[in-house]
């Protein structure tokens, strides 16, 4: 094999941070399988060419495994004649276990399969959360899939479909977790496998689940359907631990870093170095719990909030998800069913009402949140807004009926 010269890429081998270039070269230089050596040699060649010309050379196409319409990002080289061995270089998007847990055995098993059929390059994980097996020929994608699918792995989403979801480490290791992220993750996504494997929605639809408002999954930013764990009752305070904290760090440190950073001034430090929490005004931002995890914990009446419509820039500019369900319990089977049903209604409505290539957030902005909530049969709640309308441009002729709804709800609640 004559190795392509890669003067520019070589410069990415210096420096202490692990080098992806060195990794690709290892495969080119030391892997026993010639197919892998050749593939990576040509891949390096094309990549070097990109660096030199400041241009990409991949184009899309259509590749899928038997029975599915999506889950693979097909790549064909525009300069395949120069780099024939990496001419077909598709990525398989494979769904990771909820919470991204692995054993070394599991990873070895995946490595073995990929060694047989792929380029030897893999990423844990892509920005949506998939294991990305980067670089397979059209033919090998099927073989690789068959093999890993046999031992429990399935493709994720690509195209206008329900996408692979993400859930944080959560209950597995995190004291802040207010819900079972992983069950919710799997119950939701695995209910929509048809919508995932056979892209037929107006556009992509993403679920992300964070166990608390720290939102380590960026769910509010990046998910069409964000689930955020939270609590409804009073936060738990271990006053002894508070005292210890004060003893170690000092009062003023606590005041400057906890008390005065509470967005709603819901905290006060008492003379006896205990903490008072105005739970009515606590907005569950997590800050004080983050600073003093030993002393403060979420309350006991836990559940989730649901926000809809997060997405990145395209067409209308970035959009965060906004609250459509301030709080719901997710404990017993009925709770889970209610959650899945809601997701179904949301996706059905999206499928029927969104324009082509319109995210649900854009759709809601177009039709108005109120219309969306009414279609979903969700009761209006002041927690859904930052403030009421600032303009008078609304037709209020059935004010009475709407007011009555609210009053009746409050009475039945009381």
């Amino acid at each position, binding site marked *: 094999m004559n190795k392509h010269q890669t003067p520019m890429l070589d410069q990415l081998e210096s420096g202490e941070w692990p080098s992806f270039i060195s990794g690709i070269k290892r495969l080119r230089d030391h892997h026993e399988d010639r197919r892998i050596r050749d593939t990576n040699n040509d891949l390096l060649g094309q990549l070097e060419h990109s660096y030199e010309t400041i241009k990409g050379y991949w184009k899309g196409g259509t590749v899928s495994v038997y029975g599915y319409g999506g889950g693979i990002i097909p790549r064909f080289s525009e300069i395949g004649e120069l780099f024939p061995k990496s001419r077909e270089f598709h990525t398989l998007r494979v769904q990771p276990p909820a919470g991204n847990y692995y054993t070394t055995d599991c990873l070895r098993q995946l490595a073995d399969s990929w060694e047989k059929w792929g380029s030897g390059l893999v990423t844990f994980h892509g920005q949506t959360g998939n294991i990305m097996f980067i670089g397979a020929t059209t033919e090998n994608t099927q073989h690789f899939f068959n093999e890993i699918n046999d031992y429990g792995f399935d493709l994720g989403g690509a195209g206008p479909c329900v996408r692979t979801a993400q859930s944080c480490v959560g209950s597995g290791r995190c004291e802040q977790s207010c819900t079972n992220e992983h069950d919710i993750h799997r119950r939701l996504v695995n209910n929509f496998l048809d919508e995932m494997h056979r892209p037929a929605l107006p556009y992509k639809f993403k679920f992300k689940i964070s166990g608390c408002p720290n939102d380590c999954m960026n769910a509010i930013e990046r998910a069409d359907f964000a689930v955020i764990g939270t609590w409804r009752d009073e936060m738990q305070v271990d006053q002894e631990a508070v005292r210890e904290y004060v003893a170690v760090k000092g009062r003023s440190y606590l005041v400057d870093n906890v008390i005065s950073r509470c967005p709603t001034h819901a905290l006060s430090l008492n003379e006896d170095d205990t903490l008072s929490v105005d739970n009515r005004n606590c907005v569950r931002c997590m800050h004080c719990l983050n600073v003093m995890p030993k002393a403060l914990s979420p309350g006991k009446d836990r559940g989730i909030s649901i926000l809809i419509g997060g997405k990145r820039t395209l067409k209308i500019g970035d959009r965060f998800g906004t609250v459509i369900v301030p709080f719901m319990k997710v404990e017993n089977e009925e709770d889970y069913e209610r959650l899945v049903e809601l997701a179904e209604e949301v996706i059905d409505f999206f499928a029927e009402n969104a324009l082509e290539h319109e995210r649900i957030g854009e759709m809601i902005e177009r039709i108005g949140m109120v219309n969306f909530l009414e279609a979903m049969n969700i009761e209006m709640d002041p927690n*859904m807004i930052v403030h009421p*309308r600032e303009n*008078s441009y609304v037709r209020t002729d059935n004010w009475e009926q709407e007011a009555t709804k609210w009053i009746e709800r409050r009475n039945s609640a009381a």
Partner: protein
Amino acid sequence: MPATQRRVPIESGCPDGMQYMHPVMKRNFGQWKYHEDPKPGVLKHVAHDGDEIWTVRAGTQRILDLFTLRKLCEIGDRYADGYLRFTIRSNIEFMVADGAKVDPLIAELEGNGFIVGGTRNSVTSISHTQGWLHCDIPATDASGVVKSMMDQLIGEFRAWNMPNRVHITTSCCQINCGGQGDIAINIQHTKPPKINHDLVANVCERPSVVARCPVAAIRPAMVNGKPSLEVDERKCVCCGACYPPCPPMQINDPEHSKLAVWIGGNHSNARGRPSFQKLVAAGIPNNPPRWPEATAIVKRILSVYKRDAQDWERINDWVERIGWPRFFELTELPFTKFHIDNWRGQQKSLNASSHLRF
């Protein structure tokens, strides 16, 4: 045109206030050091050189008859120094150099039915607009609404019971000449305009009427042979903007032009940036001569504010702290879909966070 009328105007513009200014104020112009609030309705400003100017503020009906105006002048001469001014809320202010004149002046004003107060953390006079007395498009009479409310709020005008100053405004149509306020009582139409087709052709410039509609609900149309306009009722938000340029677009309706209450308009830069007022209650009967339903809601909001807010919190500061869920709970005002914005920029008013109050 008779000679008298051919007189060429002297375009003198805005007169110089200095000529009417109290000598102590003139002498200390720009030299004031601080002020104190000896009692409700009274301000004491002290200049760097120690000079003092005392101000007594009183509420009046904004529409003054000449008898009232002359009475005020008379009081100004007998009990004050003959210098006075009107505030942006049409309260009258007498300025005196001698603190001893304050109490007799107050007594005389109150004795003649003028209400002394409106300073500091009081509910000062409600600023209002022309209404049925003069405007061509009002759906209610701002002066009457204000008289009715001030009768009920007079105790708060005279006292310092509020967490911070309270500025209330009213307007007699949705155009809102009254501006925003801590609390605003405005008209909110609830039905599209009824069009008097026979008149449109003669009275209205159709293109400019079409252009006035914020939601493009108006189109030119031929109605029984005549050029007229038609309104897409599904689009119309009943704002009444088409009515001034085209009176045949009858937006005013004795039953369906309701009152709405808004809160949280704060124009000062103190603490937070100026804030827009928010809709809190609508569908309130437009019920002359005393509009009791509207007054009841305003009083309810004020009593909760008074009870729950902290010193120096204007109404917007207070609600920002306790949150809207709690506001609707405490005031027992219903929260409806109408509170959720659907206008341009609506997105910014939705809760894009998991900051929640339970």
